[in-house]
């Protein structure tokens, strides 16, 4: 074997090793959570790398907890409402920011970007007061409202980027056809923007589904909690003995839908994330 061929083979081998390590690093923790969740509680404390005989008792236990199912329901409602609200508010805003030149446009954009950088804890006490004043404390509405603080700037920013990329002449053609801005937006631009809407909506959904600080602070009772809080508060007999099998089963249950979504919409998510970050 010639030296050059040897070098090439080694290089290729090294490359695939790196890819392997990378995949292991990325996927193993989740895989391990699945393995753990499929073990009966007796076998939990024996480290093993694969499942010999899957045992679904943990899943059965989790799904029998009314509060956990309730939390999933709450999370779904909150996330879907937040996505709808954020998309509705940001579509009109993105039209204004992406298609119309007006004095103050830059200021509004900077403000939106600024809000997206707020530390959540900085508005915690003020928001707490607002929510209590509106009588929303310990309801899903408290979360729907408060989550707009991080979803709305993001959706506005990304949709503005996408909106700005649509050809200018299309809008002028609509004007020549006698369309009002509202008609232009809803009947000409929005139909072209639905891929972007899906992307942004998906990202907003993930962000809302995963949120923890507000959910922990603005809800009090089991019936109002969302999934992250419910999981964080799962506890065993003593603080040092967490029901790990149960916990992992719950974790897998709330994560699998997200992972599937991400794998399906990978391309769109990437375009949304980079539109939000790089093109700013």
């Amino acid at each position, binding site marked *: 074997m010639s030296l050059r061929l040897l070098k090439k083979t080694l290089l290729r081998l090294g*490359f695939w090793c790196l*890819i392997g390590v*990378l995949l292991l690093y*990325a996927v193993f*923790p*989740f895989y*391990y959570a699945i393995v*753990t969740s499929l073990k009966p509680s007796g076998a939990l*404390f024996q480290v093993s790398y694969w499942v010999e005989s899957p045992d679904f008792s943990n899943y059965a236990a989790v799904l029998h907890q009314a509060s956990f199912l309730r939390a999933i329901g709450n999370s779904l409602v909150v996330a879907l409402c937040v996505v709808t*609200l954020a998309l509705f*508010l*940001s579509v*009109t*805003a993105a*039209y*204004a920011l992406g298609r119309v030149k007006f004095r103050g446009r830059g200021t*509004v954009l900077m*403000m*939106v*970007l600024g*809000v997206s950088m*707020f*530390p*959540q*804890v*900085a*508005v*915690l*006490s*003020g*928001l707490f*007061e*607002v929510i209590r004043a509106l009588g929303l404390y310990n309801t899903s509405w408290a979360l729907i409202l408060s989550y*707009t*603080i991080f979803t709305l*700037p993001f959706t506005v920013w990304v949709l503005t980027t996408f909106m700005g990329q649509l050809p200018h002449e299309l809008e002028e053609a609509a*004007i020549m056809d006698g369309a*009002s*801005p*509202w008609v232009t*937006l809803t009947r000409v631009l929005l139909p072209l923007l639905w891929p972007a809407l899906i992307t942004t909506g998906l990202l907003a959904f993930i962000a809302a589904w*995963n949120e*923890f*600080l507000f959910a*922990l602070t603005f809800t009090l009772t089991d019936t109002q909690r969302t*999934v*992250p809080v419910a*999981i*964080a508060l799962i506890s065993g007999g003593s603080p040092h003995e967490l029901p*790990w099998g149960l916990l992992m089963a719950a974790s897998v249950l*709330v*994560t699998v839908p997200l*992972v599937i979504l*991400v794998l399906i919409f*990978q391309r769109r*998510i*990437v375009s949304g*994330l980079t539109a939000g*970050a*790089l093109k700013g």
Partner: protein
Amino acid sequence: MPVSTTHAPREQLLLTRETPVQRRQVRTAWLFLTPMLLCLALVAVWPLLRTFWFSLTDANLADTSEGSFVGLSNYLFHNGSNWSGILVDPQWWNAVRNTLHFTVVSVGLEVVLGLLVALLLNIKFTGRALVRALILIPWAIPTIVSAKIWSWMLNDQFGIINHLMLSVGLIDAPLAWTADADLSMWAVIIVDVWKTVPFVTLLMLAALQMLPSDCYDAARVDGIHPLKVFWRVTLPLLMPALLVAAIFRILDSLRVFDVIYVLTSNSSSTMSMSVYARQHLVEFQDVGYGSAASTLLFLVVAVIAMLYLYLGRRQMEVRS
């Protein structure tokens, strides 16, 4: 032809004229912006101002309207013999140190790892799309869940990490990752890096794909060593994107809450500024003091955000 010099006064009058379409568009623009602006005012601007105000009062969570104005005494107060307030609270400075420690180490690791992974995934190979999708998994997992998964993996008695390290012979006795004061910050960093490297990788990949390929062809034709090409061509061209990603991550890391709260709860060796502020706000119900801490955190973030906006503006100007 420079007519503008001769007709200057008339022009001033003319510049403000717009077509009915444009006038209506501008009016509609503001109309369309209003709901969004109102919403942000309600959930962001107003609460922020209230937080500033609370930080100057001794308000209590049970009834925030009861508080009375106490000036800056939440920040710093001299009662005749000694100082009190956040700025002399060792716990606060500990939280600041922890946050900075966390930010510097985790963002540093994330940017370096993210860049390396991006370079690796920028090479064309079969199954690249699948690998790219799979590395997104950590990003999609809720922070709480990833913290729980890792705290199970890092469990001192039954965790797989200790098991692995013991069997390889790296350590002789199990490590208490989340309880040991020396290790718990590392545990937090490990989890955060694992979760956010995909994000940085994505940004870097996107930036890599925007690089002009003719530069590389030219370098290849000239026979320049790939490492040299990386340092001289790739890295400088990637710098703007790298900077953006780093600042995004810095802003995120400074307000870190979930990972630390779930992984190590209120342990003082990992307590971040956000955890500290929330502890005072919610657990101790001391809205005044907690708001003061929040305000300080906000100021730190604001300064860095300002810096980012400034750099972003400059970059845009340079580009255009």
